[in-house]
């Protein structure tokens, strides 16, 4: 047990690394998708809707295999780690765009109407009035999606990224101690997930501390 723990800790860092990158890039993808939904040009709005529908309607695992094995056909030759980050980002981006939109729509319409009638522009209304009030809900839903992504990141082991599940599977095969290896790697996932939950809760409290109730 003692000899395999350092290997699993190292692999857990890869899981964290790949997940954090995917979440950060995924937020950019999601922001773009939300912006596309508000563009006047109709095909752009349709693209955003269709993208979200298709990505949410197909398995993450198949998306990963499509880009990793099928990518070279369309000139997309990515190494496994990059592929994991890219597919993770474009996958969580679709879910996150819905979360962001939901949070923005949850802010009472009267808020933006009042702000506009006080002379603030559309951008200023969004940035200074709507987003601060939507931030709390947004952070919580993004937190839930981040936890799903961390668990899904185990699937990149299939394209041979040496992350936590890959290492656990390899060690189970070589040590024949499934219970011990499972216990240690499960514990690591649990620690990572609880850390994310803690960070989300702190961020939630910080962003909602001035909210009137």
């Amino acid at each position, binding site marked *: 047990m003692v000899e395999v723990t350092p290997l699993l800790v190292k692999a857990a860092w890869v899981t964290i690394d790949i997940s954090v990158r995917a979440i950060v890039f995924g937020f950019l993808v999601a922001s773009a998708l939300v912006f596309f939904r508000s563009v006047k040009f109709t095909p752009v709005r349709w693209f955003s809707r269709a993208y979200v529908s*298709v990505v949410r*309607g*197909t*398995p*993450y*695992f*198949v*998306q990963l*295999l*499509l880009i990793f*094995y*099928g*990518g070279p*056909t*369309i*000139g997309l030759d990515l190494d496994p780690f990059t592929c994991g980050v890219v597919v993770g980002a474009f996958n969580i981006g679709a879910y996150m765009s819905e979360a962001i939109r939901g949070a923005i729509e949850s802010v009472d319409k009267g808020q933006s109407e009042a702000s506009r009638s006080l002379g603030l522009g559309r951008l200023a209304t969004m940035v200074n009035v709507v987003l601060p009030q939507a931030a709390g809900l947004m952070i919580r839903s993004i937190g839930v999606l981040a936890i799903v992504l961390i*668990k*899904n*990141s*185990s*699937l990149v*082991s*299939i394209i041979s990224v040496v992350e*936590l*599940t890959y290492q*656990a*599977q390899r060690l*189970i*095969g070589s040590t*024949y101690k*499934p*219970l011990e290896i*499972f216990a240690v*790697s*499960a514990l690591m*996932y*649990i620690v990572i*997930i609880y850390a994310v939950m803690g960070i989300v809760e702190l961020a939630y409290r910080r962003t909602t501390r001035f909210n009137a109730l």
Partner: protein
Amino acid sequence: MTFDFSPVLTYLPTLIQGIGITLLIGVIVALFSVAGGLLVAVISIYTNKVISWPLRAFIWLFMTTPLLLQLYFLYFGLGELILIPAIVVGILGLGFHYMAYNADIFIATIRSVSDGQYEASRSLGFGHGATLFNIILPQALIRAVPQLGNNLILMVKDTSVLSAIGVAELVYASQYAISVSFRPFEFFIVIALIYYAINILMELGQAWLERQTAFRR
């Protein structure tokens, strides 16, 4: 960049067989995980701590770790004890995973009904069992419909992960065809579209079921 979908047509029977197994696994796991989830929820609410605590721990453990890790554990763990086909491990693994998620939902909906109505029903003279089966559970089941639908839709997408332990569902079934035709892009596009079609049908079914049950709440 040229596309050639003809190998997909050549191997269409293989894909259809894969779809069949995917749907079969989906149906079995759906029944197993919903029935099991309800049982786990009822037992963990209405029994003492000695029984309910391990059940809660089971739910918590399955919800906080990845499906693939659980599948590897079952596959290698059970494989060490008895000779067991991959598809059985896959159905058990996926079944337990979603059983935990469904139990979590049932616990919430049973509590939401039970809070007000348990005492009312008992004070009208119904026994514990009659209250549970005639008053609480029917309402709890209907309240659980929307979230159960979401879980089942996620579950069918997750059947693709079973290919990692060698279950011959859609993704695994096409692997041979991909390796001889060298057309991974075309095959995975078609596979993705098949899942998308299944997904849309399930969403329609979920919407229908929600309409059917909405007035009973």
